């Protein structure tokens, strides 16, 4: 009925320690979750000691240095290194954030790095985001308008209308928020999660979109939207400073206003 421990093959074991060179002055330990699907072993925590004087300031710099110089089997996603692609989302020091935007100096003591919580792991720090992206597809994140566009193809909108999607369009779909939501942990198969609901709101308030009613109707079921209990982990953890909780509250209000 209730499991108090992880299944035997999921329990995280102590892994190897890789020491820094003797003349390193500013040494920091990085405890990193490792798991290889091919070797049948349990997940483990490897410890890497790095000389911060020979490393860039961000956690991603440390990960890349480890992969280049210490252990090339360490696996993680990364691309832009500037906080715009969303690839390097992971849990650093217990907080879901982008490794490229998290300064090592912000963490006191050893840096604990694990993959995004409650997401299936492909390998090491790489989460399986296929369900999250399938949920994104399910909200139909494209312009739906029966009215044909004007002859020059430009559907115009005023500055005020464009301002409606500020705070919504900037989402990079890193899924830090979704992976931090306890409701998504327990009901991720049916609850859409804060990232997708933020995007749903982005399309609901889009002035050029004509399917607002249908979009609101689609969310009006006990699971897709209403598993949100304003836990607020999402807004707390967003590395881009967005506010999914506020967007979700706005959707709930719009649904109520439609019914009244």
């Amino acid at each position: 009925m209730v499991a108090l421990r992880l299944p035997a093959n999921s329990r995280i074991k102590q892994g190897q320690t890789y020491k820094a060179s003797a003349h390193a002055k500013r040494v920091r330990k990085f405890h990193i979750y490792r798991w290889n699907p091919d070797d049948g072993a349990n997940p483990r925590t490897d410890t890497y000691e790095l000389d911060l004087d020979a490393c860039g300031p961000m956690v991603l710099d440390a990960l890349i240095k480890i992969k280049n110089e210490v252990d090339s089997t360490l696996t993680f996603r990364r691309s832009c290194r500037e906080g715009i692609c969303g690839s390097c989302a992971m849990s650093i020091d217990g907080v879901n954030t982008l490794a490229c935007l998290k300064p090592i100096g912000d963490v006191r003591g050893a840096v604990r790095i694990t993959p995004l919580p409650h997401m299936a792991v492909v390998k090491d720090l790489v989460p399986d985001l296929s369900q999250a992206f399938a949920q994104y597809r399910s909200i139909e994140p494209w312009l739906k308008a029966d009215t044909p566009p004007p002859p020059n193809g430009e559907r115009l909108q005023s500055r005020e209308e464009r301002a409606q999607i500020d705070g919504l369009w900037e989402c990079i779909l890193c899924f830090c928020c979704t992976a931090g939501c306890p409701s998504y942990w327990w009901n991720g198969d049916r609850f859409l999660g804060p990232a997708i609901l933020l995007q749903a709101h982005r399309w609901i308030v889009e002035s050029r979109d004509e399917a607002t009613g249908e979009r609101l109707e689609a969310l009006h079921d006990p699971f897709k939207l209403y598993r949100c209990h304003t836990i607020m982990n999402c807004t707390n953890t967003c590395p881009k400073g967005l506010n999914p909780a506020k967007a979700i509250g706005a959707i709930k209000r719009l649904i109520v206003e439609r019914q009244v």
Partner: protein
Amino acid sequence: MPLTLWFIASIISLEGTSRAGVIAWLQAPVPLVLMLCMIVATFWHMEQGLRVVIDDYLRNDVMRMTMLLLNRGVCAIAGLLCVVSVLRLGL
């Protein structure tokens, strides 16, 4: 919300009144109706709140359905008990 405030204010104002005094207060139409509304609202709210918890945490469909029906049953019966009691005093 206003109903709850009224309820709290009434209970405070009834402090120290005898049993007969409370029954007399309840026999007036406005307190009686508001009290009935309060009971219905409270038990409805309780049922909804427990329903959210059941929906969140019970994944097994059979177990979930059973608990949802039990939830509705218990809240309905408890609510009706309160309503009948108040009506017997007030009418």
